[in-house]
């Protein structure tokens, strides 16, 4: 309990420090101005969300191969956490886009593939809600989760393979791309903070699945006599 509280406090401090760096340490971008500061929350949330979906994907593969409950718990936990981060990505994107592009949204390859990703993981959670038998639910959702992850490389590649309204990549974007050194440091610090938050939320969500299992066990015992 004490360890969880300390870990939680550290993560909160890290997120506050990342926000401080985004507002007061990162320089103002020349063409977009102050609004570009949304980038540090927007892109870092996107990266943490994709990592969570990768964890979900790996857990789904392990479940299909080994049929252990803990992989199902990790799969659903990572899907929910990834969905929370992708929701932040989809909220902050239009708020940043509106003053810069003059529109809130456009159906380009990056935005569309991200929206589809968000819908796929909502479908993953809805699917779990529709199947009552636990083993069948775990297997069906694991198979669905493996296929849903196919969209993640598409989201990554969309701004590299096609012309999009969304800006071209500034990280891993090839020659001519990149960030000013202080901006890059603040960005990677924000990525670290968002990943720490993702791990915290994931561990709390996994704990919920363990508690649910404990509840079902006690319920079974109570019903048996």
């Amino acid at each position, binding site marked *: 309990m004490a360890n969880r509280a300390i870990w939680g406090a550290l993560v909160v401090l890290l997120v506050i420090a990342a*926000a401080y760096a985004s507002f007061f340490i990162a320089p103002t971008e020349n063409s977009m101005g*102050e609004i570009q500061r949304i980038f540090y*929350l927007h892109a870092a949330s996107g990266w943490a969300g994709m990592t969570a979906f990768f964890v979900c994907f790996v857990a789904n593969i392990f479940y299909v191969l080994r049929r252990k409950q803990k992989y199902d718990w990790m799969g659903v936990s990572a899907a929910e956490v990834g969905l929370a981060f992708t929701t932040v990505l989809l*909220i902050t994107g239009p708020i940043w886009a509106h003053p810069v592009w003059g529109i809130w949204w456009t159906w380009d390859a990056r935005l569309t593939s991200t929206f589809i990703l968000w819908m796929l993981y909502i479908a993953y959670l809805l699917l779990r809600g529709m199947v009552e038998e636990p083993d069948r639910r775990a297997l069906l959702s694991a198979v669905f989760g493996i296929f849903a992850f196919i969209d993640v490389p598409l989201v990554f590649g969309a701004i590299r393979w096609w012309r999009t309204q969304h800006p071209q990549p500034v990280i891993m974007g090839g020659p001519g791309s990149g960030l000013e050194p202080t901006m890059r440091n603040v960005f990677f610090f924000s990525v670290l903070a968002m990943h720490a938050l993702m791990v915290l939320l994931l561990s709390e969500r996994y704990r919920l699945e363990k508690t649910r299992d404990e509840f079902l066990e006690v319920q079974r015992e109570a019903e048996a006599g």
Partner: protein
Amino acid sequence: MKNLDSIFAAYALGWGVFFVFYLSVARRTSALRGEIERLKNSRGK
């Protein structure tokens, strides 16, 4: 600072989503803990 309202809205909504998610997980866990205690107590009687 231009567009300060948009920056504030983005950060407030972003942190809001994380906070609401954390709260929902904590409440669901706490409700289950309560149910476990209730079942254990009813068995003990």
